[in-house]
């Protein structure tokens, strides 16, 4: 790093200016920006060390260096490190004791309550901790959390071993809690939930999904003065009868989620949301029958903006009643809601002209009339999901172009054709377009999209089998911001498409599964150029071989997930992949060139693996110690006995 010339032009820049630039870069999503910045010169490097507050390390082998370089980390995301032991947690908690405020350990294993304890005790200003998915953490860990007296946000999703006793400790210790997530903590009952409500009066959001709770704890929860979000998904212990006994009412509540609460009807909702004048969001997915009574019940919420009724059985009168609400909805979800017809949907959208998001997925009875009324009345629409609306004819899609603010459109599995795409191309803000299983669309339609929708980021063309290279080339030229592309099972796709797609610098996810005509040469373009690639599905791209893997290993250092089944990869290619420093998920079945030795070498060499799906035939071939070792490192080996899909080899 020694500068041969004494003059460093960057030193002449004002430090304040550089700081502003750096902060901007750090706030950006791009992980490379900060890195490039720090590599400019020594002073930039030093500056970056002091200014960086967020850290998301991929591995912790060089923890010492990290601790030395970054002194002021306040937000630590360890989701890429599957194994963090107690000693590591203690080290970093001591090093950043005065700065660390947020820690995400939701995908991390190995550490125990001792590590949690050192975090809670050393980092006195810790306000947020996520310990989700640790089903083995016990009440001792909860007791350790209780030492973090300033904690405001706590996520314990799926901590199935934590009981009322542990959560009681947390409730007593962390009295400043504002956001508590106890989803799937199935050993926590009314006692624990009620105690949190009694002890932590500052709670803003409370997630009690899947807990065996009843109205007894709700009595205390509804007395919370600041409660805004209450999530009670699949709390089947909550029933109308019990709710009827509730005396308390919560005026501050803004969001109520009662998804999958099958034992609740409009009566229960009414008693639960008694006096909830500020309710904005009501989520009733898969819970009850939409009746006129329910609609009447919704009348009492003047500020209602969002209603989700997906998976509910809708009656005519009920849906019409929703159309008569005094509140003007902004978001409505009626997906898989049986009973939605042209008549009631048209009536509904005519009153709610402010609707921005509509989800009518799988509403099989609606026709182009509904689409016409939606597009005529809801001019502010930004999201329209109408997957599998199979009765909507080709004419229906011609109306969509009227909603020029549209950003998201899902027309998977519909009759849309090139004319429809021409109409959609008027929506210049479109960023997410799903055209999977649209058998009518061709390259002509895609060219319309490519010509005007330059902001497109997500494009799904799964099994839209009439698409060829021509369309893909047009898209990749017209839409430079593409991040997610799915062209799976399009047999017309060849290397030409990949060459053009490889110019999309931002490409993160690419699915070319079943595109059998792709050759190693074509793939090497993607491997070498798309450096941001994180997810790659090349299953059944039979011709792709070790060359592609070696190139991936060389250039795509961000790859996290790859599916390699049925490729012509051998041990060599797989071992090459091991050098990708953040590769976490790998799925590899029926790869002929793979041997157990190669597999073992790969497993041992790749340090960041979390989940590897392998054929069951390897299970007996891999030494027991290796399995143990992988387990200890936090990697799950899944053995699946998948049969060879012979037809693919034709």
């Amino acid at each position, binding site marked *: 790093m020694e500068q041969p010339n004494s003059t460093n032009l960057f030193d002449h820049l004002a430090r304040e200016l550089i700081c502003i630039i750096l902060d901007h870069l750090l706030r950006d999503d791009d*992980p490379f920006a900060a890195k*490039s910045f720090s590599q400019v010169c020594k002073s930039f490097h030093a500056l970056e060390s002091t200014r960086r507050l967020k*850290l998301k390390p991929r591995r912790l*082998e*060089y923890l010492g260096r990290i601790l030395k370089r970054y002194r002021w980390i*306040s937000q630590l995301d360890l989701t*890429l490190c599957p194994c963090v032991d107690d000693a590591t947690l203690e080290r970093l908690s001591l090093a950043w004791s005065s700065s660390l405020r947020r820690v995400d350990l939701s995908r991390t294993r190995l550490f125990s309550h001792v590590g949690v304890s050192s975090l809670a005790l050393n980092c006195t*200003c810790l306000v947020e901790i996520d310990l989700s998915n640790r089903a083995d953490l*016990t009440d001792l860990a909860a007791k350790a959390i209780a030492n973090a007296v300033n904690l405001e946000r706590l996520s314990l999703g799926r901590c199935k071993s934590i009981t009322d006793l542990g959560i009681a400790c947390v409730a007593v210790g962390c009295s400043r809690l504002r956001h508590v997530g106890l989803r799937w903590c199935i050993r926590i009952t009314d006692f624990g939930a009620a105690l949190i409500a009694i002890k932590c009066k500052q709670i803003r959001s409370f997630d009690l999904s899947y807990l065996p709770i009843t109205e007894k704890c709700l009595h205390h929860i509804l007395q919370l003065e600041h409660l805004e979000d209450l999530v009670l998904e699949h709390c089947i212990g909550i029933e109308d009868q019990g709710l009827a006994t509730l005396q308390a009412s919560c005026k501050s509540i803004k969001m109520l989620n009662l998804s999958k609460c099958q034992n609740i009807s409009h009566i229960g909702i009414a008693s639960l949301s008694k006096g909830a004048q500020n309710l904005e969001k009501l989520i009733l997915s898969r819970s009850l029958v939409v009746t006129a009574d329910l609609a009447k019940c919704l009348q009492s919420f003047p500020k209602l903006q969002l209603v989700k009724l997906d998976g509910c059985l809708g009656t005519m009168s009920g849906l019409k009643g929703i159309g008569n609400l005094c509140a003007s909805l902004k978001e409505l979800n009626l997906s898989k809601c049986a009973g939605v017809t042209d008549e009631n949907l048209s009536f509904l959208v005519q009153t709610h002209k402010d609707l921005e998001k509509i989800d009518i997925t799988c509403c099989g009875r609606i026709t182009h009339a509904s689409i016409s009324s939606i597009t005529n009345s809801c001019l502010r629409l930004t999201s329209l999901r109408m997957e599998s609306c199979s009765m909507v004819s080709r004419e229906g899609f011609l109306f969509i172009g009227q909603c020029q603010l549209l950003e998201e459109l899902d027309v998977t599995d519909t009759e849309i054709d090139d004319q429809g795409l021409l109409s959609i191309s008027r929506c210049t803000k479109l960023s997410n377009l799903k055209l999977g299983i649209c058998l009518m669309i061709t390259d002509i339609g895609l060219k319309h999209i490519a010509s005007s929708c330059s902001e497109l980021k997500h494009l799904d063309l799964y099994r839209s089998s009439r698409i060829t290279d021509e369309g893909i080339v047009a898209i990749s030229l017209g839409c430079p911001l593409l991040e997610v592309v799915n062209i799976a099972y399009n047999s017309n796709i060849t290397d030409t498409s990949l060459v053009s797609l490889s110019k999309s610098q931002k490409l993160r996810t690419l699915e070319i599964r079943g595109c059998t005509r792709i050759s190693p040469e074509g793939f090497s373009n993607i491997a070498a150029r798309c450096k941001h690639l994180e997810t790659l599905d090349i299953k059944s791209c039979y011709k792709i071989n070790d060359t592609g893997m070696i190139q991936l290993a060389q250039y795509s*250092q961000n790859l996290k997930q790859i599916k390699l089944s049925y490729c012509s990869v051998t041990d060599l290619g797989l071992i090459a992949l091991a050098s990708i420093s953040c590769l976490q998920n790998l799925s590899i079945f029926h790869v002929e060139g793979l041997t157990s030795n190669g597999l073992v070498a790969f497993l041992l060499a790749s340090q960041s693996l979390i989940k590897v799906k392998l054929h069951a035939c390897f299970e007996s071939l891999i030494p027991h110690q290796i399995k143990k070792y992988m387990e200890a490192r936090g990697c799950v080996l899944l053995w699946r006995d998948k049969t060879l899909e012979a037809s693919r080899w034709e």
Partner: protein
Amino acid sequence: MDSNGSLRANPWARSPSLTSAANGLSSDPLSFPGFGLQHNQPKWDGPSNSDYGIRAEASFKEFNQPSQNGSPPPPDSNNEIEFADQENCHPSESSQTNGLQDWDPSVVLNNLSFLEEKIHQLQNLVHLIVRQKGVGQPTELVTQEQQLITTDLTSIIIQLISTAGSLLPSARNSLINTSPLLAQIGQLQGPTVPSGTGVGISCIQPQKNVGKKMSDQAMQTDLPNNCEMEQNYNNVEHDPKDEDDADDGESLAPGSYEILQLEKEEILAPHTHFCTICGKGFKRDANLRMHMRGHGDEYKTPAALAKPHKESGSPKLIKRYSCPYPGCKRNKDHKKFQPLKTILCVKNHYKRTHCDKSYTCSRCNTKKFSVMADLKTHEKHCGKDKWLCSCGTTFSRKDKLFGHIALFQGHTPAIPLDDNTKGVAEPPIQDSKENSKEGNMNNTFGSIPSNGNEVQNVMDVKGNSDDPINYFSSLNFEANFGVFNDFTRPLFDDSESSFSFVMPGSFKSGGESGSDNLQ
């Protein structure tokens, strides 16, 4: 009343030893309860101005009722007495194990003659009643007199019993004897200290009672009213927190029952039933009867072996008990006196409240009890179902623990540190303890054996006391807090984004990609 009746029988049954009791009586001036009574006797008629005969008749009727109802009708009233519950009998017999001193036959004789006279009185009374039977009386008067006489009779009987009790064969050492007598007499006379006024000492309280009773009866026709009164009474007088098992929930108007008070020694006596022949003590009447068989064929008759039937039906006074401990809520002198229902209640109450807890649980070595039954009940649950608070308090039920925690600041449930403490907390917790072992290495409590709960409690409490300090120190961050908040809040909003950090160690490979990036 039944117990009193039973005691009455004793003098006859145990006449051979009558003399022995005289000692005790002589030793105490009050040991001649009968005299007082005798003295009062003439005045019975006086204050009430009512016809003596009427009263006598009424009481006679009532007195006979039990025997009429009883299954094996006893030949006379004396017999009937034998069947009664003998609980009250024991006081005079129980504590007579020591001392043959102060044995004066003359006193015994005195006593005997008193008894004789007493019986004559009774006989006269009954005769009067019989004679009066034919005469028509205004029913109201009759019933009133009946009540009065009943109570008068009761007092006589009690005197008799006490005297008789002192004459029991086993009652050789009598000093203690007198105290129960005293108690009984005193109890009867208790509130009517101004006995010198010539009003029947033993009458006054019963009279009061009668009055109450009458009103009660009158009110029974008016049910709702009655209920209301009782409820009110509940509100004022009844303390549900009282620990005793006795008459919680019962609400008798004060004075509507008769109050008996046993002495400490009687309460604590191990045996309550004694063999009149050999003096052996028994806890149960049935055991005594079984024992008696060995003393001769006369005890083997079905009548002798039969279980004493309970008197029923007669509108007798309800009996309630007072605890002899001064100042106790169960003591009759207490402002909010709450009587005890049975003698067993008295015993349990006295032991639980006023005695040392001498029975220690052998499992936990912490819990102590004064009643053996309580210990046995505890031992059934000891060790399991324990919900432990950090303050050391244990609860048998989870909801009680959580109620406690919700109530008190800073208390938390005590969480067992490892498998060693199994049994202290919810059993399933230990099921998934694999990880905790590692942690326990650093833990000083790790080595505490299973019975170290107490120690753990203490430690927990200590930890608790530190809490305020921690809390306080944390407050210092308050100032920084706001600043930090403002600074990092926007960052937090981006927290979903994948802001990956490339390790310094991966610079080699990263360098390439970095240079590519600059293209």
